[in-house]
């Protein structure tokens, strides 16, 4: 199929966008290159808003090449008051992960 500079077969590639369509805010974008096999998991990290209360977020699943195959999933989050305990645990957890990674590199 490669007959000219632009005529290259292209690998599938996907973009995940987490957004709030009510505020027009894009919260997070992640690219996923390569083929999705029978089972694949993708993680999308984001920070919840300052604003409390129920909010509707949308995950957009978009192909970079196909037209008409995009999907979107709406879901609700109920944002409750900030919890320092949970926040510190989140941070400790990522520090622990980082330590594990560095130890693994040393070994």
């Amino acid at each position: 199929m490669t007959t000219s500079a632009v005529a290259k077969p292209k690998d599938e590639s996907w973009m995940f966008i987490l957004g709030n369509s009510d505020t027009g805010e894009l919260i997070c974008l992640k690219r996923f290159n390569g083929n999705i096999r029978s089972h694949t998991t993708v993680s999308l990290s984001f920070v919840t808003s300052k604003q409390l209360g129920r909010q509707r977020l949308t995950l957009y699943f978009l192909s970079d090449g196909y037209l008409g195959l995009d999907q979107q999933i709406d879901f609700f989050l109920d944002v409750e008051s900030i919890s320092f305990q949970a926040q510190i645990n989140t941070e400790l957890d990522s520090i622990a992960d980082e330590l594990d990674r560095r130890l693994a590199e040393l070994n």
Partner: protein
Amino acid sequence: MIDRLRIPFRNEPQFDSPHLKTNLLIQYHLSRLEFPRVDYVTDLKSCLDQIIRIIQAIIDLCAHKALLSPCILAIQFLQMIIQARWITDPDILTLPHVNDRSFAHIFQSYLCQLLDIQRETLADLLNGHLSNNEIDDIYEYLGRLPQIELALKIRGFWKKNEETRTLPANVHAEQEYTLQISLKRLNRTRVSIDRNKIIDLFNRKILL
């Protein structure tokens, strides 16, 4: 050439402007129109060589600026460039050999509804319009299109331990959580997945 553009120029055209030329070339590409001179084909090629990187940069910029709808529009523009179709066209026009809007009446459905279609059903629809080989091409192409099921969960800290919960969920404000997206490919795998490339249909047009 200007008379055939789908989106006309707003101002009096400046014929020496490179912007006007790029606009014209891209619109011809999206409408799959033939150029009156072969020079334009070379120009379009160099244009398409650059444009994908430029759109990717626009997508990154929109993500950085947290702009939701401009980012989605940029991605849709990328899809239009790859398929050489307008997003306002019926999506079944991205199928091979389907080059005429009248096919929209024959199919009476969206592309995503055709992914599971049986060979016989497809042949019944298209007999008299396309040859057997062409119907085979469409069937094979449909089998290669990704048919993906998504499921979401959320992972993070609520109290002491890290947990995974289903949605909808209560979350704490200003805290990092991870959305876990499970993707499942539902396709009939008649073709090995490694061969599963998006074949840029526009190339046929460019190479004419």
